[in-house]
């Protein structure tokens, strides 16, 4: 059975569509990544899962429980770490965790024992009894992660858990997430860092404009693109004429696709090859034409390529396009009760 089943989820804020018939299925004991630019609908999806927001239509089932019918049960089995960490500056980290434990009705002895355990695992001993107001971004995020884990949820939902964090905090969080999944917890995290999804996720979905547009394991998604990316030069700085000649030699070779002349890179050639053997054939053909290879770089397709293929633009372009359209004031009002 899947840990999360989202069916035909739609949500609009006024005239702005955040989600449009989104379907998502997250298996149990899996670290699942949601990749997409800011404004793609990631946060809205996670807020609906956390029962903070009701969808306009669609169904939400978490661990077999209908979240719209039985929100309290879902709250019990889910830990939610929001993007904007809300902490009480006047309380110490330990007091905040104690409050959190009481809100989940833990027994006092259990509660304090678990708090000590999490302080240890997240490396918080040195500052946990200081007031939260003095914490850095990384400390806050670790504290918030501890708060989300205190009741030992079967599902942990994290909204961009490492955005803007120092390396130490980030690796502490990554390590803990891996341990959790090994111990059987399901983790759903959103990110707009390709690297984070690449390193962490067992499975992933790409979200764009409120829809899932690609889904699978990161390796699968890259495999589906097929072929390695090759950049090739016959001279350090070539010219248009020579590049065109090289292309005419390359194009007929079997297993070579999408040959593009890259003017910005000194008329180098970008192409996709099917299989390793193509490289040898390619070198021979060019040699035969009197255009021996000067430099050749080969790479596996990256998640950025996957994203480009799925949406027709790079993740960075998508972020830039969306940055101008968002109404942050409106979003803040939406998140306020």
């Amino acid at each position: 059975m899947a840990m999360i089943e989202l069916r035909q989820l739609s949500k609009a804020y006024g005239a702005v569509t955040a989600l449009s018939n989104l379907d998502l299925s997250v298996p149990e004991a899996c670290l699942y990544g949601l990749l997409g630019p800011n404004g793609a609908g990631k946060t809205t999806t996670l807020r609906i899962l956390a029962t903070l927001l009701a969808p306009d239509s669609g169904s939400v089932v978490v661990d077999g429980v209908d979240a719209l019918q039985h929100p309290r049960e879902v709250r019990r089995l889910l830990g939610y770490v929001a993007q904007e960490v809300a902490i009480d500056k006047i309380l110490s980290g330990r007091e905040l965790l104690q409050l959190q434990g009481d809100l989940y009705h833990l027994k006092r002895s259990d509660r304090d024992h678990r708090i000590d355990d999490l302080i240890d695992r997240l490396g918080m001993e040195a500052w946990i009894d200081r007031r939260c107001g003095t914490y850095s971004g990384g400390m806050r995020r670790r504290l918030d992660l501890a708060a989300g884990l205190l009741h030992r949820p079967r599902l942990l939902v994290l909204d961009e858990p490492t955005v803007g964090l120092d390396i130490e905090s980030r690796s502490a969080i990554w390590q803990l997430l891996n341990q959790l999944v090994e111990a059987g917890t399901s983790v759903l995290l959103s990110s707009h860092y390709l690297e984070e999804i690449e390193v962490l996720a067992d499975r992933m979905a790409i979200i764009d404009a409120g829809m899932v547009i690609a889904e699978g394991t990161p390796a699968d998604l890259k495999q589906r693109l097929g072929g390695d990316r090759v950049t090739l030069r016959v001279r350090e700085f070539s010219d248009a004429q020579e590049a065109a000649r090289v292309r005419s030699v390359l194009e007929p070779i079997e297993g070579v696709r999408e040959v593009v002349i890259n003017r910005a890179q000194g008329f180098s050639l970008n192409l996709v090859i099917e299989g390793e053997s193509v490289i040898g054939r390619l070198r021979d053909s060019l040699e035969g034409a009197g255009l021996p290879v000067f430099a050749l770089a080969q790479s596996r397709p990256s998640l950025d390529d996957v994203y480009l293929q799925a949406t027709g633009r790079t993740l960075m372009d998508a972020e830039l396009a969306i940055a101008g359209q968002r109404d942050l004031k409106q979003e803040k009002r939406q998140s306020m009760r």
Partner: protein
Amino acid sequence: MPPPAQAPGALAELTQETLALTRRLFLQLIRRPSTLVAGVLQPLIWLILFGALFANAPEGLLPGGMSYGRFLGAGVIVFTAFSAALNAGLPVMFDREFGFLNRLLVAPLRSRSSIVLSSVIYITALSLVQSLAIMMTASLLGYGWPGAAGLVLVMVTLLLLVFAVTALSLGLAFALPGHIELIAVIFVANLPLLFASTALAPLSFMPPWLGWLAALNPLTFAIEPIRAAYSGPLDLSAVLLEAPYGNLTGETCLLILLVLTIGLFLLIRPLLNRKLS
């Protein structure tokens, strides 16, 4: 507010979450005591300065030949509790604005009434402590002290007023868009309600239009029973206020406060339900 749950341990869970939320409010108060200090200091200054202002007023000017200091005492006690309760919505508003409320709403609270309940417990305790501090100061200034029965009457009256005003403030905290607006409303409501009551002067001193306002002002219904508790043997059936629309006994005053409290809680209930669901 959601219906009370019947599951086993419901009461224990409700107690646990309410106490934890109340504890947080008190920790905030202890670590940032300026609210507490200002809440005692302001009425204290009223008591001392205003008391001195009319210290030489002719004898027998006030009903029953009361000294002005003693007359003012009841008004300032009520004003203290009222001001404190009026601020009840501020912590809730900040939690809304900073997203801390979302943390509470993600948790499987037995009932979200515990969020409201913890505010009521906190602000009641705070305003009673502040009022007691003022009562003790007034007593040191020679403005008297109610007897044991009188003290009970003072506490009951203050409780009713505090509940009503807390309900109002919590309602505003969920209805208004931000803390700036809430503070503005508190600021505007505070002093006019004090002046248009019998806190500083009896009804007989006022022009008819102000007398009407004062006789409709809920603060007046709290001030008069407390003033009575200070001025001798307790008789709740005695006429305490000769309002333009008729005579009010102590019992009537308390009854009006009770109805007001219940009415306000019923009034804000749909709003809280909507905001916390």
